[in-house]
């Protein structure tokens, strides 16, 4: 085995960049700051590619496939005899894949941001946050144990919070960042409890021990049974809750649309390509435990993923904010990935879903980042997010137009673009597992194509709007990343994923099942056609459709009132019916009791003052009575 200790540098470089920019950035020229951030990431990216290359080329062992390697580990905190929190670097197929994804997208976003954020007073701050995020995310994927993952999980959450709230003077941004943080934090609680339970049942945090099919975690089958499922299953479900929070699965998705308040590069990096797939990565990371230890939990994953994907797709069809459409699209796509994991089994053919999921993760990162960056370029040009405020931009922004179109076609699953392959695998996996889920995904594929092209036409076709100034193409520093990503979107599908990233490390023979592929392509095309008909030029059809499906439309447009439900729960229930009463209770009952004791004492003090009447004879009376009473009590009663 080769020495991979240097991989430690991949997360650490961004960290130092973060410290440098965070502490000294305000003294630098913006461009320097951007350059430092970008070059830091650039080095990381190069190291990642080198690692990936080395790993996939040289670490393959015939018969057992790719092994996982602990490149580095140090004890961070010693908890009990068995449990220690270690920090380290774990190299295995999925982490290497994630390294590549993250560094690539992150690098592109960095480059892009130099142009996008130009002139912003918090330029250095933005780059330091970006670096912090990259550090956290890389630390997350390289985690050797679940607790390290949790640590970086939290850090990812906070950098997301910082980036969403980047425009901190904008109340909506502040609210959105808060919402994102709290919702994911809530999910993290599930994650934490899951970790607690898992560590209690298995006595370890370490991934290698946990995922070892012969290891204690899986072998034990989870110990005691609680409400029909083993404790292991429960802990895995709770861990999945954490993943669902980050990955915006229903019903914890509500933060994602709001998170679009952040700068668009951030949306591209965090809320499309990397952080939101952390949940997928988490489940993938623990996949052997899920698959072998507690299949029940895996079913939950599948259904949550499936439901989220169609739920988000429906909503996406009705939104008008381009970033929100993309956000729901992201949610939908991640639903795909989750579902894919959920329907997968461990090893061999069964493990198709696992492979497909990671594959889709990879391709999705490319095209969704591309979409966001493209959207960013558009927004940069027209200064609005609303699709109604755009139109006819194809002639002003040719590069953006082309790359955006590529991305749309990719996401619609049209061969030979990359998503066709990954999506196809997912559908196959679903088909072999559960027909209903397959049906859902099938419909979602159509819906995806539909709403993406609705978006595409809305932006680039149709009438010109009255722009404040003529939109112009973005600078090269922004368009080059678009092109790089477009390249990735087109060709990533040809990567031999089935040989590299599989559930058990062994290569997997895949073949395109045309019986599934063709209908899926067809429904994608159908979606595109419908969208073309409805939106290519302005017609009355959309309104009519909306009128026909009035209620559905309204519900979907309002995101099925999920926000309202949450508001109700937080504002009404927690704030009004829990916190305020508790605060009232505290002030009035508990504190009142304490003050009451003092009050009673005071009152008694006043009440008995008559004893001290100033009258000598009364004193004598009390004296005598006291004596008599003492005599009575102690001589006669005792």
């Amino acid at each position, binding site marked *: 085995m080769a020495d991979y200790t240097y991989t430690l540098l991949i997360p650490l470089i961004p960290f130092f960049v973060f410290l440098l920019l965070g502490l000294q950035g305000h003294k630098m020229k913006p461009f320097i700051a951007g350059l430092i951030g970008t070059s830091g990431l650039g080095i990381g990216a190069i190291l990642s590619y080198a690692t990936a290359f080395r790993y996939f080329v040289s670490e393959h062992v015939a018969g057992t496939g790719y092994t996982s390697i602990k490149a580095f580990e140090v004890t961070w905190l010693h908890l009990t005899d068995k449990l220690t929190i270690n920090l380290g670097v774990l190299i295995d197929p999925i982490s290497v894949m994630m390294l590549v994804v993250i560094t690539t997208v992150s690098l592109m976003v960095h480059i892009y941001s130099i142009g996008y954020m130009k002139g912003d007073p918090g330029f250095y701050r933005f780059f330091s946050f970006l670096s912090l995020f990259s550090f956290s995310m890389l630390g997350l994927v390289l985690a050797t144990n679940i607790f390290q993952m949790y640590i970086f999980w939290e850090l990812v959450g906070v950098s997301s919070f910082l980036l969403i709230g980047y425009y901190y003077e904008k109340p909506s941004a502040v609210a959105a960042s808060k919402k994102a943080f709290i919702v994911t934090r809530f999910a993290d609680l599930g994650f934490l409890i899951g970790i607690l339970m898992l560590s209690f049942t298995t006595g370890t945090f370490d991934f290698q021990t946990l995922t070892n099919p012969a290891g204690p975690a899986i072998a034990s089958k989870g110990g005691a049974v609680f409400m029909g499922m083993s404790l292991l299953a429960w802990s895995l479900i709770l861990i999945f809750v954490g993943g669902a929070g980050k990955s915006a699965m229903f019903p914890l998705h509500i933060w994602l649309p709001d998170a679009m308040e952040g700068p668009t590069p951030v949306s591209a990096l965090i809320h499309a390509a990397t952080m939101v797939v952390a949940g997928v990565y988490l489940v993938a990371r623990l996949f052997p435990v899920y698959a072998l230890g507690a299949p029940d939990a895996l079913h939950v994953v599948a259904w949550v993923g499936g439901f989220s994907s169609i739920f988000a797709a429906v909503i996406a069809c009705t939104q008008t904010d381009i970033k929100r459409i993309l956000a729901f699209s992201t949610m939908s796509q991640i639903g795909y990935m989750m579902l894919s994991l959920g329907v997968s089994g461990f090893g061999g053919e069964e493990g198709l879903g696992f492979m497909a999921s990671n594959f889709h993760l990879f391709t999705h990162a490319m095209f969704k980042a591309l979409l966001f960056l493209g959207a960013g370029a558009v927004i940069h040009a027209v200064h609005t997010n609303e699709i109604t405020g755009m139109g006819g931009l194809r002639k002003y922004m040719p590069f953006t137009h082309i790359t955006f179109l590529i991305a749309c076609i990719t996401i619609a699953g049209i061969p030979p673009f990359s998503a066709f392959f990954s999506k196809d695998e997912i559908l196959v996996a679903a088909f072999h597992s559960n027909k209903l889920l397959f049906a859902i995904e099938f419909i979602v594929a159509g819906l995806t194509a539909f709403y993406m092209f609705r978006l595409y036409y809305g932006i680039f076709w149709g009438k010109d709007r009255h722009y404040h100034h003529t939109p112009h193409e973005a600078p090269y520093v922004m368009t080059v990343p678009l092109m790089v990503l477009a390249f990735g979107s087109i060709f990533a599908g040809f990567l031999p994923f089935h040989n590299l990233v599989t559930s058990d490390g062994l290569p997997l023979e895949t073949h395109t099942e045309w019986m599934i592929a063709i209908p899926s392509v067809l429904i994608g095309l159908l979606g595109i056609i419908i969208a073309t008909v409805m939106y290519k030029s302005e017609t009355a059809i959309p309104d009519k459709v909306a009128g026909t499906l009035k209620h559905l439309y309204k519900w979907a447009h309002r995101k099925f009132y999920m926000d309202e439900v949450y508001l109700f729960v937080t504002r009404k229930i927690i704030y009004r019916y829990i916190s305020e009463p508790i605060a009232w209770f505290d002030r009035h009952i508990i504190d009142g009791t304490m003050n009451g004791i003092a009050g009673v004492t005071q009152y008694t003090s006043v009440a008995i003052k008559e004893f001290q009447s100033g009258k000598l*004879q009364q004193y004598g*009376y009390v004296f*005598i009575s006291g004596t*008599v009473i003492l*005599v*009575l009590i102690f001589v006669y009663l005792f």
Partner: protein
Amino acid sequence: MLNQVMFFLFGAMIVIFSLLTVTSRKVLRAAVYLLFVLISTAGLYFALNYNFLAAVQLTVYAGGIVVLIIFSILLTSHVSEKAAMAPVKQSVLSALSVGAGAILTLMTILRFTFVPNPGTDPQYNITDVGNALISYKRDGYALPFEVISVLLLAAMIGAIVVAKKERIKK
């Protein structure tokens, strides 16, 4: 027999005049009743053969204190003035408390069997009393006798301090 008659006479006088002392509405009369009580007590002492004590009782108490009291009564109130009486509530409460105390105490005392010291009953004469008074052995009372002089001195000075008029103040 005579003894018994004397005892009951004195006893009755003591109780009756005590009662009168504390109930009489005229202050001066109360003082006189007190005098009777004290004299009767002296009578009891005589009967118990403690002549010296009886004499002291008569001179100091009856002769000294009561005169002092009568003096001060004359100084502070008119002879005919009727003393204000305590309100009924106060009287009743006091009577209840005092009555309960008396009953309890009497019950306790009467239930107790006092054991006399065995031995003879030496008859002390005035010389013995005098000797005891200046003896500093056990059962000698030289020390209290001396200390009481300090007390009397202090009381005298105290009385003077309290009662003397201030020259400076108008």
